[in-house]
């Protein structure tokens, strides 16, 4: 492989992805600026303010990303278990020394910055999962390989649940997709989907009607396959489990979930309305986004965002600023950029020779996807309020850097795609 000396590190890097990365960071900075814009104090380079800090994060993030390109891509494969171990360790440490912010024991203070280990656990997990799949090449047909993969994902997930930071923990479910790509049966996805559907249906429809519907469907299915004993057996099993699940969910919902989580779910399902309490965020966010109409109020013209009607304006609800000031067009551009990035990442992943790179690429894409879907869905009220940031746009160093690392490791792996197994 002939390479020019000066170009060696950046050879074969997918610059289109880098451009989208920069575009999203720029959009993020612009809207953080707008969300806390104060006409009396309008300096862009005020580093005590959120947008000033975000500017530092973006610049350092870019430096961080470019310096990752300087590494040898093979190192990530080699050090994957070590990195994973480190992040697990941090997740344990944070439970003891972490600073409690907003009810979550999620932050480790380092000087004036605060480190959020859950953000970094994502790429640690992605790396180890990729390493496992590429080393042992399991096709997830046996219980053992599924258990190992599940253990890799569930360890950080459960540790994060202990903080408790349900939102960040949920993101780890994104690893289902890379595993699916590597051979995990599609039934797992269907079962997962079924669980969600049943969970929601359990709230909207009386349980006995659900049981009736499930039984009828199962009965028809069995009737159609009445010659196949095995199918009948598994259908009956699934039906029984599904019905049991309905009751377990009801009980678990009451006993396990915190009251604020319950009310968020009920609000999302429209089972209750609450303009002042838990529903305030969502309603105000929807009002802000909706008031942007087709073309938006214009940069710095948003009244809802400027006058602080939407809480968590610059972090989790940054999308409401975009919606209000840039309207449906701006929202479409942002969602379009994300989708372009996601589809491109999947395409890049598929062109890898190495399984390690491919699994890692899928992980990156799916983690981003979960973040984007949950965050935007939350701001427009189709998903309960789950506090996770909008990748690269929301205010916050940990989040920005972790996505940068996540993405640029993949870009490095991708640039080496011809190089090694």
């Amino acid at each position, binding site marked *: 492989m002939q390479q020019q000396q000066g170009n060696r590190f950046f050879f074969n890097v997918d610059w289109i992805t880098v451009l989208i990365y920069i575009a999203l960071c720029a959009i993020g900075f612009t809207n953080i600026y707008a969300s806390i814009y104060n006409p009396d104090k309008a300096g862009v380079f005020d580093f005590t303010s959120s947008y000033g800090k975000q500017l530092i994060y973006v610049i350092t993030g870019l430096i961080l990303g470019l310096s990752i390109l300087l590494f040898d891509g093979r190192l990530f494969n080699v050090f994957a278990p070590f990195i994973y171990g480190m992040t697990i360790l941090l997740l344990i440490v944070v439970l003891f020394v972490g600073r409690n912010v907003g009810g979550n024991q999620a932050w480790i203070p380092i000087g004036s910055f605060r480190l959020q280990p859950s953000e970094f656990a994502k790429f640690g997990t992605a790396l180890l999962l990729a390493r496992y799949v590429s080393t042992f090449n399991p096709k997830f047909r046996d219980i053992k390989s599924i258990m190992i993969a599940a253990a890799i994902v569930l360890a950080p997930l459960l540790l994060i649940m202990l903080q408790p930071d349900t939102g960040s923990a949920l993101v780890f479910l994104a690893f289902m*997709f890379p595993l*699916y*790509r*590597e*051979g995990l049966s*599609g039934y797992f996805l269907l079962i997962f989907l079924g669980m969600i559907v049943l969970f929601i249906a359990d709230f909207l429809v009386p349980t006995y009607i659900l049981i009736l519907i499930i039984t009828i469907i199962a009965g028809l299915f069995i009737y159609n396959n009445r010659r196949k004993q095995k199918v009948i057996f598994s259908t009956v099993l699934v039906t029984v489990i599904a019905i049991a699940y309905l009751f377990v969910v009801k009980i678990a919902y009451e006993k396990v979930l915190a009251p604020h989580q319950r009310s968020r779910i009920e609000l999302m399902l429209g089972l209750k309305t609450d303009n002042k309490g838990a529903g305030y965020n969502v309603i*105000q966010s*929807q*009002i*802000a*986004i*909706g*008031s*942007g*109409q*087709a073309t938006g109020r214009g940069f710095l013209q948003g*009244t*809802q965002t*400027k*006058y*602080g*009607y939407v809480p968590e304006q610059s972090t989790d609800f940054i999308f409401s600023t975009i*919606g*209000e000031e840039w*309207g*449906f067009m701006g*929202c*479409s551009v942002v*969602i379009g950029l*994300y*989708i372009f990035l*996601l*589809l491109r990442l*999947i395409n890049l992943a*598929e062109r890898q020779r190495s399984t390690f790179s491919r699994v890692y690429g*899928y992980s990156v*894409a*799916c983690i981003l*996807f979960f973040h984007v*879907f949950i965050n*935007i*869905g939350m701001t*427009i*009220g*189709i998903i309960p309020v789950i506090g996770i940031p909008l990748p690269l746009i929301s205010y916050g160093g940990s989040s920005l850097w972790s996505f940068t690392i996540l993405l640029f490791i993949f870009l490095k792996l991708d640039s080496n795609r011809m190089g090694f197994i």
Partner: protein
Amino acid sequence: MDQLFNRKYIVQGLFIVIALILLGKLFYIQVISDKAFVSAESNVLRKIYKYPARGAILDRNMKVIVQNEPVYDLMVTPNEVKPFDTLALAKALDISFEDVRKNLRKARGKSSYQATPFLKQISVQSYARLQETLYRFPGFRTQDRTIRHYPDSVGGQLFGYVKEVSPLDIEKSEGFYKPGDYKGKSGLEFSYEETLRGEKGVINTVYDAHNTPQGSYADGKYDINAVSGERLISGIDMRIQKLGEELMKNKVGAIVAIEPSSGEILSLVSSPGYDPNLLVGRNQGNNYMEFIVGNPYRPSLVRPIMGYYPPGSSFKPVDALIALQEGVIDPNTTFFCPHYYQAGNRKIKCEHFDGSIALRRGIARSCNTYFCYVFQKLITKNGMKNQRQTYQEWRDKVAKFGFGSKLDIDMPYERKGYFYTADHYDKIYGKRWGYTNVISQAIGQGEITATPLQMANAMAIIANRGYYIKPHLIKGIGDKNLVKKEYVVKNYVGVDAQHFEPVIDGMQDAVNSSWGTAILSQIPDILLCGKTGTVQNPHGKNHSVFIGFAPRDNPKIAIAVIVENAGFGSTYAAPIASYMIEKYLKGTVTGARAAQAEWMKNQNLLPVLKDKTAAVKLTKADSLLIKKADSTKRIKDSLRIKSAIIKQTVTTKPKELKTVVIDKPVTQK
């Protein structure tokens, strides 16, 4: 490529589907629905209203008769309130300690972040006191307003009153009125509401989520300045309006005076009246209950336009005019009066002895027999078989004088009186009925009722010799002195001018000849033409009625006066009319008549109040209790009378009505 490669499309497809779901919801809330936009506006915008001053009303001599006075509402924004000295505020406002806490609680209940009224209509004096200490009460601010003031303290029913809009008003106005707005509820304040109210101003201010004002919205582009209401010039002459109310003190009845040439109403007295200033300010509700609802003589009934009275003898000139026009009599036609008129098996009495009598004397002496003959001739002129048809024709001719329909005065709640068509009598008498069945109408009794306004208007027609302009109170709206189109049109009644003189001769004699019925009401140097009426009232003393106009040539004033339960027309109604006319024409009541007028003011003619339930059932012609005087009802009534007699009726002594004087606040210059 392994066979798992295809799973890429499932993952990518999922991404795209989810993106479309997000975009779909965004499209809905941003582009299709504008609910969010509206909510966003209400989030940040607070409108502060500037209330305009209502338009003033002047009388025909350009004297201000309705004006405004500044008052202040104390507004409170509950979540801006910091702990304060409740006692000091109570003291500054002159209310009790408990009231302060109660009002604050009430305001909190309405809205915690919007300014709501804490105490309405603080007087200028309290405001001055409060202003010095207002800084000690954060969260409180004052809102300028104006309330009405009526300098002459008369004309309660005429002017009506202004009150805060009710939820129903708001709903009806389709959003024009907002809670806290004021609106004219009756009288002129009601009928000219749109002219008087002006336009509310608004200042849009942007507030942040912490309810801190962030300055003007869009640089005041959408702010509106308050525009004061337009002023009105009324035809009322405050001098005689005031005199009229004084003369009618402690009497029940009405006076309507009209300038015949223009239809402008000079005076509209409804008695018992009340001081319109009672229905202004914070005691409005209490005063309303005490002086309006609580008064057994029902001041809320605007008698000049709502009271139903049989016109009695005052109807006779109209009868005569139609007979002359129809040619069934001429001025010299005589009828013999044997002291009664026999109509079938009914006998209608007459109160004088004149033998053969012609038109002029018939009117002057108010001869019932004469007019029964006239009526008989009128109804039978097309033969006995066609009486029904002829009655209907006669009725339509009389209706042209304004009887039986509204005159469209610019005041609400005008009523039209009863004046039945032939169809109505068909229902009662079947197909066979004739003049004898309806003969009582000849002398203005029986089923015909009219409002004092209609009676005065009939006089204006005679004064004008054949036409009237719809009576109205306002002759000039706004700076351009506009007048409603319908109030300049001459309405001809279909009687030729030459027929009026013989009738007017009789009316002149009624007042100015030795044999007239109202000779005590002569006015020196003024030729008053009139007609007394003594309206039979089976449930008490007769109503005293006088209608007339003056002077005979080029008349300036037409008048109708009704004093309920006062006996003969010549005793009370006629003198009252003569004082009004003299005051209007000469500026003052002269000579010995001034003392007589004073005497009149002091007469207490309030009718004895019967037990309310019995009274409702027994009274027919008594306008105190409006009741259909209708032939079908009569039978039912007679049954009721019997049952009512069995019940014990409680009578109370008439009480002297207290004149209510309220302390007028000193107007600030």
